[in-house]
Each structure stands twice: as structure tokens, then as C-alpha cells.
């Protein structure tokens, strides 16, 4: 890794140089290193801690999404400092030889204006490839650099688990998503972490005899792990997802809060006929102490009226595993253990990078969740 003053041409030159050094001699048996770029990733990092994370994530991404990563460490400061460096990121074959390589440019800035940074970033993007902006941390939408860049991007990735004022920022994200209408597409890694939970929940109802129970759910309990400051956004998004899929609509008085427990009330569409067919669904969201540290811990979907049915997904004592259990009308529960691996930051990003357009399921869940969040007492 070599240091250089900020000169775009110098960075480009260095990138070219780097590739020439990587090339193997063109003998018949040797395989050349493949420079395979599938996208530009701009990682806007708020501080050094995040910058370190980005440096570990970018190489891990190369395996699935070889890319040009531009890491921008955007720190506040009185005087302006700017530094840039260039690096190749390679996946190695079992023999330890570089096989597929992407590129990483790091711009370390202090006290730089958004305009200055943008003028450095834009010429560094590889043409004709999608541009993804990853902006973790608190208040991503309020960052001048994000405000300046998002229109040029195909996707903006934030992480609601890192929001400082989670419920308010959730509503802001929803407003932004609606206003931009898919340009850029919006991703939230907090939502990505719900994927295995959504899969396991949905799988109950791939079983034909269980499907009717899905339309008569009366109670939901969502427990999430919380340490000092509970962040209920993931649980709200999960509730929003169920509500949007099942066409539940919030009641007038939809939200009740007791301590850290959030109680939501929605109306579910008629299953049968007659006025009694429209029924209430209650959703209880509560933080619990759990070794997982963050994310969902237990999920209960329950139909109580008439025939009792209960569907539970919960983490087991063994890290990375969950137990799913379906109990219908007092019959013996049908149980199994499934993997529910703790995804790394690189896994989460990778999964979002696979999407090419607006994630409509997420958008629908986000808008319902934000609609509920807006009714929270201030």
C-alpha cells in the first residue's frame, strides 16, 4: 500500500501500475489474475472505528462482488486534511495465488467540505457500473456528503441498528424512500438481518394445512435483544412486514407504550362473513436481555380464537441456531432446529448488493413501520 498526495491522475496511474505488477508472465500454464469489477462502492465512514471496519469488509466483499471501493473517512475538523491511498483486493486460490481482484481507494479526510470530497470521488468511479453508497452510523441522511451524492447512486445502504434516535430516524428513512421513489434504491442492513427470521416464519405457511392459520393470527410477540439503549426498529420492521403482507391496517389508537414495551393494534381483514369477521391483531414488542446482544430473540404468532394455533421461532442456547415450533389445537408440537447464523457486515452488504432494483417488500414494510412509529407519543 502506497501513499500519495491527492491527485486523481496519480491515483489512476497507481491503479494501472498495480495491475501491471499483478499480471503473471504470459506463459501457457499460468493463469492471469482477473480484474473483475462489478460495481463501485462508496463507503462513507463517520470515524476511524468505522474506517477500520470498512477496511476489513471490503476484501471480504471481493469474493462475491469484486468492486472498486472508495472508502471516505469523513471526519470533522477545523483545518482541512486530505490523504489518499490505493490497494488491490484479491481473493486467493487454495495455493495462495491471487485470483480475482478488486480495487480499494481510501480517502482519509478531516474537515473537508462535501464539495471537495465529491470532486475527488466522482472521477474515481469506474464508468458504466452501478454505484452504491454505504453510509452507516447515526443520521446518515443528514450528512452533507450523502445529500450531495445520493442522486448519483443506484443504491443507498444505511443501517438502522446504528441509528442514534432509532424511531425518529426510521420515519425519516421512510420519508426519504418515498420521496426518492427508487432512485436511489434504499437498503437497511437492519432489515437484511431479519432475512432468516422472515424465511423461517414464511416456511411455516408453505405447509398447506397451516396456511389458513396465517389469516387468523390474533397476537404477535416480538422480543429483541437490548443492552443499555433499546433499538426497536428491527422489531418494528418485522411487524411492518407481517402487516404489509397480510394487509393489516393500524387502528386509530394504534400505539401504546409501557416502559420499554411497545403495544401495537392493527385490524386484520375479514376471513369469513359478517361484522364479527373483522378482527383485531395485537403486536407486543419488548426488549430482553440476551447474549446475542442485538437482533430478534423470539417471535410468537398466535391464533387464539376458536382453534388455537401457535408458531414460535426462537434462538436456542447454541449460538447460530434457532428452534421453530408449530403447535396446532393441542396436538404435539412440530419442532426442528435450523441455522440462523449471525451474519457478518460483509454478508449483509453482499446480500444487498445482489439486489438490482428497489426492494419493494422492504419498502412496504418500512412504510407500515414508519406509519406506526409516527404515532409514538413524543
Amino acid at each position, binding site marked *: 500500500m502506497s501513499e500519495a498526495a491527492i491527485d486523481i491522475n496519480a491515483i489512476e496511474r497507481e491503479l494501472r501500475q498495480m495491475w501491471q505488477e499483478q499480471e503473471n508472465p504470459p506463459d501457457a500454464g499460468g493463469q492471469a489474475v*482477473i480484474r*473483475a469489477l462489478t460495481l463501485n462502492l462508496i463507503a462513507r465512514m463517520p470515524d476511524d472505528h468505522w474506517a477500520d471496519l470498512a477496511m476489513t469488509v471490503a476484501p471480504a466483499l*471481493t*469474493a*462475491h462482488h469484486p468492486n472498486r471501493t472508495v472508502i471516505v473517512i469523513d471526519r470533522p475538523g477545523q483545518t482541512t486534511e486530505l490523504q489518499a491511498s490505493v490497494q488491490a483486493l484479491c*481473493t486467493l486460490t487454495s495455493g495462495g495465488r491471487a*485470483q*480475482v481482484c478488486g480495487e480499494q481507494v481510501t480517502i482519509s479526510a478531516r474537515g473537508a467540505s462535501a464539495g471537495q470530497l465529491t470532486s475527488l470521488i466522482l472521477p474515481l468511479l469506474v464508468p458504466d457500473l452501478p454505484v452504491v453508497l454505504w453510509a452507516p452510523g447515526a443520521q446518515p441522511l443528514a450528512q452533507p456528503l450523502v445529500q450531495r451524492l445520493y442522486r448519483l447512486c443506484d443504491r443507498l445502504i444505511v443501517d438502522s441498528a446504528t441509528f442514534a434516535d432509532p424511531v425518529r430516524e426510521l420515519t425519516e428513512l421512510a420519508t426519504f424512500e418515498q420521496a426518492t421513489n427508487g432512485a436511489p434504491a434504499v437498503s437497511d442492513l437492519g432489515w437484511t438481518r431479519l*432475512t*432468516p427470521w*422472515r*424465511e*423461517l*416464519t*414464511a*416456511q*411455516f*405457511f*408453505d*405447509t*398447506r*394445512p397451516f*396456511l389458513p392459520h*396465517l389469516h387468523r393470527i390474533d397476537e404477535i410477540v416480538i422480543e429483541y435483544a437490548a443492552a443499555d439503549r433499546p433499538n426497536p426498529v428491527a422489531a418494528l420492521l418485522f411487524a411492518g412486514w*407481517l402487516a404489509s*403482507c*397480510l394487509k393489516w391496517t393500524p387502528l386509530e389508537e394504534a400505539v401504546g407504550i409501557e416502559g420499554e414495551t411497545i403495544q401495537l393494534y392493527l385490524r386484520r381483514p375479514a376471513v369469513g362473513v359478517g361484522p364479527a369477521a373483522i378482527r383485531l391483531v395485537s403486536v407486543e414488542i419488548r426488549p430482553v436481555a440476551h447474549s446475542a446482544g442485538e437482533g430478534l430473540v423470539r417471535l410468537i404468532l398466535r391464533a387464539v380464537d376458536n382453534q388455537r394455533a401457535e408458531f414460535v421461532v426462537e434462538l*436456542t442456547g*447454541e449460538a447460530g*441456531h434457532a428452534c*421453530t415450533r*408449530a403447535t396446532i389445537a393441542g396436538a*404435539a408440537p*412440530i*419442532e*426442528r*432446529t*435450523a*441455522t440462523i447464523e449471525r451474519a457478518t457486515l460483509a454478508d449483509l452488504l453482499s*446480500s444487498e448488493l*445482489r439486489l438490482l432494483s428497489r*426492494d*419493494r*417488500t*422492504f419498502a412496504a414494510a418500512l412504510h407500515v413501520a414508519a406509519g406506526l412509529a409516527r404515532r409514538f407519543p413524543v
Partner: protein
Amino acid sequence: MATSAFNNPLRAGLRIGRTPEPCTMVIFGSSGDLTSRKLVPALYNLARERRLPGGFSVVGFARRDWTDEYFRDLLREAVNVNSRSGPVDPELWASFAHGIQYHRGSFDDAEAYTSLAERLAKIDTERGTGGNRVFYLATPPDAYPTIVAQLGAHGLAHSRGWTRIIIEKPFGHDLASAQALNAEVLSVFDEDQVFRIDHYLGKETVQNILIFRFANGIFEPIWNRNQIDHVQITVAETIGVEDRGGYYDSSGALRDMIQNHLMQLLCLVAMEPPSVYDADAVRDEKVKVLRAIRPLSVSDTVRGQYGPGSANGLPVRGYREEKGVSPTSQTETYVALKLFIDNWRWAGVPFYLRSGKRLPRRVSEIAIQFKSAPTMIFADTPLNDLDPNVLAIKIQPDEGISLKFSSKTPGQPQIRPVTMDFRYGASFGVTSPEAYERLLLDCMLGDGTLFTRRDEVEASWALLTPILQAWAEGPPQPFPNYEAGSWGPAAADEFIARDGRYWRRL
């Protein structure tokens, strides 16, 4: 199928596909190699990736006197050794193994099927499998008719859920036997319950042939007789007959490889675009290709049998010295053949197919060779020095696609062929799932696209059976005629050289 009638609203936008309904898979011949090497590792990996529902159960049906416990331990060991994800995750295995049972019985014992029916009914209530069943015939082919008849006689061919049957290759050994087997199977099951497996179709790269052809706009206009000179399909194995000598000696390369795997590859390369991607539309188009193939005569084929030689630097026996093989065997271990597809797209374009055992490299590929540039304007390079453009679809190993084209040598007035390479592993950086994972899941979901339909099997046999007959009636061949570790008999090189072409050096 009935599966389209119900719709899970939570499925929309989920990033993995639908999971099948809970079901019980009954594996006949579960003490065999296929079960421990492929089937159970595939099922375990599906469970590991959350692709199987809770309640999914396995019943092993075989003759040996084993207990459930012993069977589970055996399978656990098999998964440890054979799974692409490495040794089992103990907690996950415990939950998976909970659904595994062993059912002792011989295939012709009516009593064993009565008790199987009872056992399945019990699993249906205890594990919520609702009568959904897959019967997997992982037995020697001569047991198929017995098992099918017994299943029918004991009312196991239909249930209150769905019932499907998976039949391994070989499906018959000629047209008459394939028709007879089809008749027997279809007297008990309906065609949409029958899943004839050809594991080549489960390979990601094979499925990618259709994606490559029909999801890209630029290839279809050149995919015809106007641009293509010829097509070569090669499936080469380095192994000999291993411990299958007895079976192989009554079969041979034409039956074992060409009739199923190579004909499938041919169909995928040559078929017209289906109107939709569903089981019947795709298979309709494949059958049309098979039916458009001009009848073959013996002069369109070359056969070979390997003699002693070497593999990986070690001396190896000749075919006739292999265990279970007759010392005067006339069975072919190598086949090359040329065929024409008489339709508007392919008229006049030869397709060369070759497959053999004890060849120097294990490689499967399809090479599309395009016509050369019509005139040569670069004076220093004579036209016949130019390599034609070749699009190679590599199925294994090094899965990928490469395109060879001519390029100027830097600084010199010379033209050299270069290749543009797309490698699966490099571009996606993930290990592809095993073929059996995809196929087992598809069967449980009721999707027969990647399975062989009755008319496909019969059309393929109809084409090749006359060759088998002519070979059997013809004079004995001077076997062995190629050395183990070489690229087949010299006659095969002469065969293609007569057309002014040559086999690709692989």
C-alpha cells in the same frame, strides 16, 4: 400441479425460493452407495440452508437388519465424509436425524409394504407430513418393476397429499425395455408423478446453457447454420469401470453416457426457445430436437475399448482385465458419433459427440465452432493459419464459458488466438450446490423441468437402439484399440478428419 392453488402471502420478496411442503422421502436401496454418498448429504445441506420444512422425514428401505440408531449413525458418518459443507453441525444434525427412520424389508416382500404404509401414516400424524411422499428408487434397475408394482398393490401410489417417484438411470437398456418400464411405471403412477433423474441436468453450468442462450440477446442471432460450422460435445472420464465392471460390461458407453447425459446436453444447445420456462414447454422443445435428428447408421459412429495403459502416472489394467468384465468383451468404453439435426436452424451442421473412460482428463464441455472469416485481408497471415472463433461452455471442471478470437500480437504483424474467459467460481465466488440438492428440491416442489419425460427417454432410445443392434450383429471389433490414458482410438481422429475437422485438444 396442485401446488399453484395455494399462495403463501409471506413468500413475496423473500430472497430464497419456496420451501416444499413437509413430506417423507422413502429411499429404496438405502444401504447403498448413492444414499450415503449423494442423497443424504444433499438433504442435509438443504436442511442446513433452511430449504426444507420442519417435519421433513426420511425412511430408508433396505434388506439389512439395521436399527434406526445404527442407520442414523451410518448416515451421520456419511455426511461427515461426503458433505460439501464439511462435518455435521451437531445440533442441526440432531434435529435432522430425528426425522430419519429405517424400514427393513426385501423389495418383493408384500408384508414389508403393508408395514411401510402403516409407518408412513404414523409419520403423517406425528410429523405433520400430511400424506406427502417421495419414493426414491436408488436400487439396481432390475428391482424397479417389483417396487413399483408393490407400491401400487399396497395403495401407496396415491395419498391424501401428493406422491412422487424418482427413478435413477439407467432407464431401460434399449427402446423396447424403456417402453416396457415406462408402461409398468405408468400403470401405477401418472406421468406427472414420475421424476426420471439425470443428474447432469442438476448441474449449475448445464442449467446455465439455457440462461446463456435465452437471457442474452446477442447470441441467438448467430446460433444457427449461417454462423456455426459445427458443434463438439465431449464428456471425458479418467476413471475406468471401478467396481461397476459387471454392470458396465452389459451396458457400455453408448448406453451409460450418450443416451442420457450427452443427448441432454445436445438438446439444451440445439433446442428452440420455449414459450415459457416450465416443465412441459421446455421438454416439448427437447423432444422436438430428438425427433429431428437424422437416423444414425454405424458409419456415423466409432467405438473403442481401452487396453492397459496409465492414469495419473500409474500403470492401469485394460478393460478386459477389470473385475466383472469378460476377457473377450466387445463392450465399448469409448464412443464418437456424428449426427445432424434436420430442421431449419441446424440443417447441415454436424454435431460431434464423444465420451469415453480412461481418457487423459476429466472434462465435460460443449464447443460451438463458428465459421471462419470469409476472406483474409491481412497479407502476412494465410487464412488457413487462423483459428476460428470457438465458444466453449465448460461444464466440469473449471465451470465457465470462454470465447476464442483473434488478436494482433503487440509490435508484430501477427495474429494470435486469445480467449475471453468467464469462470463461474471467479465471478460468483461461491461453491455451487450439488446437482442432487437442486433435483431433490425440485421434485419435492413438483417441478419436473430438470427431469426426463417419458417421450424424451423413448425418443433418445429410438435413435440409438438401431446402432446397438447393428453393433451386436456386426463383426467383432479388434478391441482393445486405445491405450488407457490416451484420447481414444485412432479411428476417432480419422473419423472427424474425413470431414476436414479435428477434435478439440482439451
